């Protein structure tokens, strides 16, 4: 193996196979490159970094384009041309044929002779929004421009079958296994911790984290954040470094806690001085509760009731003299369970207003402000407006869950369960 590759393999553990594949495709100093290579795999499996590092170390001229930011073809083409053919004047490239033409002109000037160029299109699935043929075009770029020292590498999370292209070679970057991850995280070992302790920590941390995330970068952050907690008992002398079980028991709560916040993506600081402006700490409960204007609360409850009760029960639920309840309890029970699982049903504005007035004790006249409450609930994603264009009888759906509605109802002293059929 080439010493350069060996160095890379050390840098990226568990990617030897992929590196070998790349080496066979892009061997050093080769003038004729494969037309296109398709690399795919899960996020954070090292697709981009391995490929780019490899191409850089082996001396290829690398052009890396992140496709997600190319929301117009103009942006894409300008960037490609600008970095393939550097020039003084600002580049202008209107369409694909123009790109081919300008590349041909550049070839005539001897641009691609000395070094081989590789165009890396990262996140190529985003290009599908532009037009269907973009990817076909790049797959055939060598043929169109007849520059054989120019190759295109597609990097994607999506399997190649989803695209209408037949690239020359497909390289798959598989998901890291637990052992692979353990190997990777050894690289990030802080210098002041001994090897054995660190490796036991890694294995116990991975068992906790692996269930929720496989994203290497995220896991790295989590692992490095909690390593001190693991080492702490050893330093204080509470536990021997070899007592894995005790250490495991001590560190798990910390790991779980940081996992929770990681899932939400929010770091809740421990020091009270930095948290918010309120004297009281922002607890989880506080973060979950939110305040709505009085009528908006009732609207939310009414919409929940309208979504989860069938209209035929409205009379029984909301009218004072609703007559006797028929005994169909068994059948109904089975049905209502199903309806719970089916999720919210759409309801009309009329029904919402009727339920609203039925559950409200005081009278509120139907003013513009009252109607705007519904609109603001829709804005807050607590209600969803169904369909469009139906002005005279719009339909809505309640998106809030039971817990949220029950919490809101609690602040009003209103019992939601009483009005739910289950």
């Amino acid at each position: 193996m080439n010493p350069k590759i060996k160095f890379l393999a050390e840098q990226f553990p568990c990617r030897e196979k992929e590196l070998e594949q790349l080496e066979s495709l892009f061997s050093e100093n080769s003038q004729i490159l494969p037309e296109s290579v398709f690399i795919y795999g899960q996020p954070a499996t090292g697709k981009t970094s391995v490929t780019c590092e490899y191409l850089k170390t082996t001396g290829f001229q690398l052009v890396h384009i992140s496709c997600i930011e190319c929301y117009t073809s103009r942006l894409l083409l300008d960037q490609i041309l600008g970095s393939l053919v550097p020039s003084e004047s600002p580049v202008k490239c209107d369409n694909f044929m123009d790109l081919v033409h300008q590349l041909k002109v550049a070839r005539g000037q001897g641009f691609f002779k000395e070094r081989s160029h590789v165009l890396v299109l990262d996140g190529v699935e985003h290009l599908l929004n532009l037009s269907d043929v973009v990817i076909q075009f790049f797959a055939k770029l060598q043929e169109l421009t007849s520059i054989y020292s120019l190759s295109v590498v597609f990097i994607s999370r999506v399997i190649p079958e989803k695209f209408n292209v037949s690239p020359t070679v497909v390289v798959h970057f598989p998901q890291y296994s637990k052992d692979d991850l353990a190997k990777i995280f050894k690289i990030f070992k802080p210098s002041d911790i001994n090897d054995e302790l660190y490796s036991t920590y890694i294995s116990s941390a991975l068992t906790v984290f692996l269930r929720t995330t496989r994203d290497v970068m995220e896991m790295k952050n989590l692992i490095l954040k909690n390593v001190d907690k693991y080492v702490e008992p050893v330093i204080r002398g509470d536990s021997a470094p070899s007592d894995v079980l005790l250490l495991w028991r001590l560190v798990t709560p910390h790991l779980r806690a940081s996992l929770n916040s990681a899932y939400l993506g929010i770091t809740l600081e421990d020091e009270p001085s930095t948290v918010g402006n309120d004297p009281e700490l922002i607890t989880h409960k506080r973060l979950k509760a939110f305040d709505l204007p009085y009528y908006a609360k009732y609207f939310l409850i009414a919409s929940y009731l309208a979504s989860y009760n069938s209209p035929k029960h409205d009379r029984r639920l909301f009218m004072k003299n609703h007559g006797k309840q028929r005994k169909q309890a068994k059948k109904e029970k089975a049905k209502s369970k199903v309806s719970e699982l089916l999720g919210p049903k759409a309801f009309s504005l009329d029904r919402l207003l009727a339920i609203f007035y039925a559950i409200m004790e005081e009278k509120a006249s139907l003013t513009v402000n009252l109607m705007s409450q519904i609109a603001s609930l829709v804005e807050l994603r607590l209600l969803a407006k169904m369909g469009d264009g139906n002005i005279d009888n719009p339909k809505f759906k309640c998106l809030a869950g039971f817990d949220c509605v029950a919490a809101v109802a609690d602040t009003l002293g209103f019992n939601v369960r009483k009005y739910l059929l289950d």
Partner: protein
Amino acid sequence: MDSTVSVSRGCFAFPATVKGKKAKANSPLNFDSEGWYRGFKDVWDNNIKQLDNVEGGVIETLMQDLTSYISSSTENDTQIPAAAILTGINLPDHGSLFSRLKSRLHNEGIASGVAILRSTDCITVKNTVERCISHLMESPLDSEDEFDEEEERQIDLKRSQCTLPNLSKWVENLNSRSPSPSKKKKTNLQRSNQKKLVVILRDFETFNPNTLSAFIQILSGYQPKLPFILVFGIATTLSAIDEVLPHSSISRLSLKAFQAQPSVYFLNNTLNKVFLTPDCPFQLSGKLFKFFTQVFLFYDFSVNRFIQGVKYCVMEHYRVGGTPTSLLCCPEALLKGRVDQLAHDDIEHIRRLGSFRSYVESTKDKQKQIKLLSDDTFTKKEILKLMTELRLRIKEFYLALSLLHHIVAQLPQYPLGKQLRELYAVAMSKDIWVTAEYKECKQLLGFLSKDELVEKTKSMIDILVESGDSSLMKDEEKQLKNLLIAVEDAGVSKVTRSPMKSPMKNLTPVKSRSELRQKVVELGIGKKSKTAYELAREDLLNYVMDEMVPAKLRSFTQAPLWEIVTLVESEARYRVVPRIRAPIHTALNNPAHYLMCECCKIVDDDEILPSMPDLCIAYKLHLESGSLINMYDWLQSFNVLVSGKQAEDEEDIDLKIQARFTQAVSEMEFLGFVKSSKKKADHVARLTWGGSTT
């Protein structure tokens, strides 16, 4: 039209000359010359300043936290620092919060660019990026208002140029222009000092999830080069973030949550510091005040709307009151000069006020009565005297109110409410000391321990001392001090005040068991002896609750000339919280109500006159029909009404009338009252007010 210098014939485009000052051209009415408007403007401008201060004070801590977070954040390679501000539900008020943040970041030199994005501007990724970058690259000197200068900015910054590569060039330029002394140390140390690019998303929940996650991923791609910081304004809960964004985007953010003060807190602050003070030239009547707070609590939580509502009422108050009001309803210091300015007409105006008249009638002195009604100079003096008295009374009122608030605000169950505003609403609308809640408060206060009572009384005295005006309520202060000493000295030894009656005396035969029980209870009470402390407490409470408060907390709406300073509820209810259906119905059913023309006046609601607008006639006719309307019948009755004669068949109808009818119907359709029906040919379906919902 300008002539051209060209010799050839052809079309020439004349670019429209840009109007220099839009605002002047736009203002339809100029009130500046009118007296009432000047008075209003003086008062309101002063108010705006105070409101601004209060608002700044309320969000000060949040601002400090945010700016320190933004300036200190050190970005790592993969994650964008992001601040999630839990702003609470109302969105209109948040505009000022974010624009304050923006100007602060600019002023303190933390950010080189701040972009405020609203979801309505950011439908696609392209829109979002372009808007964001054009905001970032605009110079901070531009006006803050993002609505007006939209067009002007477009001229020097083309949409297509707003791309991230251009932005990174711009930032490089910016950094190279500012000479940095330690250019060699291009390490993290310098990076953290680098000026940030702050992107504020005002209404996070309404953003399109796909757009937003793509936007975040694009930004994170540039994170190594450009120091982006995101700020989210979240109205509901933090969980909204993971509902909107996929995990792949969230993992690119390092979020931190901040909590803004709830808007109720903001409202209380505003009220206590700006409106509910004796220094405020105008006072809100109890009913009006209650109405506005209810709108706030029940509908929108928007302090901004609250202030706008009050502003409307103040303006209306000045407009209706005319010159005398605008002169007299002013800060106390100006009062004397203003009274001298009163003209004869103004004094006549004041004489017609209800409270002034009853004041005149109540004066015993006949001579004085006549003088008050005829002698202007004498009346002026009297007005000045009355106004000063009124101001004094308002001051006393607020002082007493704050005393009362102090002692009842912490009682269990809050019989009179926790907030000063709740007390104010009650005290303004009726005599608070006769209410049941007040009595309950007194009862609860009777259970206070010595320490609590002493503490409360001491702080009451402090309030009185701090009120600044030493002459105000001096006697009460003295009295309180005496009572306090009595309470402090009182021991807990038992003393009985009234000589005990012999229980034997009223031992009458009891007839039933309940009667017996009642008697026993009565006897128990009578026997209970009181300690000296209890007696002193009783004295103190009796004085405070039964003498001081009723004497001082009289609503000043009974004083003469109260109309000058108090805003009363007029039409405000319908202006501030408009109804939906009623105005449209009135306009169409009775056009004279709004048009104020003689020709359309009707006595009966069902009456239809040919002089009414066609739309009204068509509307009134359609009210008479069921859920489906036959077009031919409708046209017939329209024709009869307009032309006054019955048409035999279709050809008989004048084409002009038919055209008018068609126009009216299409207008009705446009307004959403009818729509064409598929059920029956030549019929339209009625959509509102009793029409079925088919």
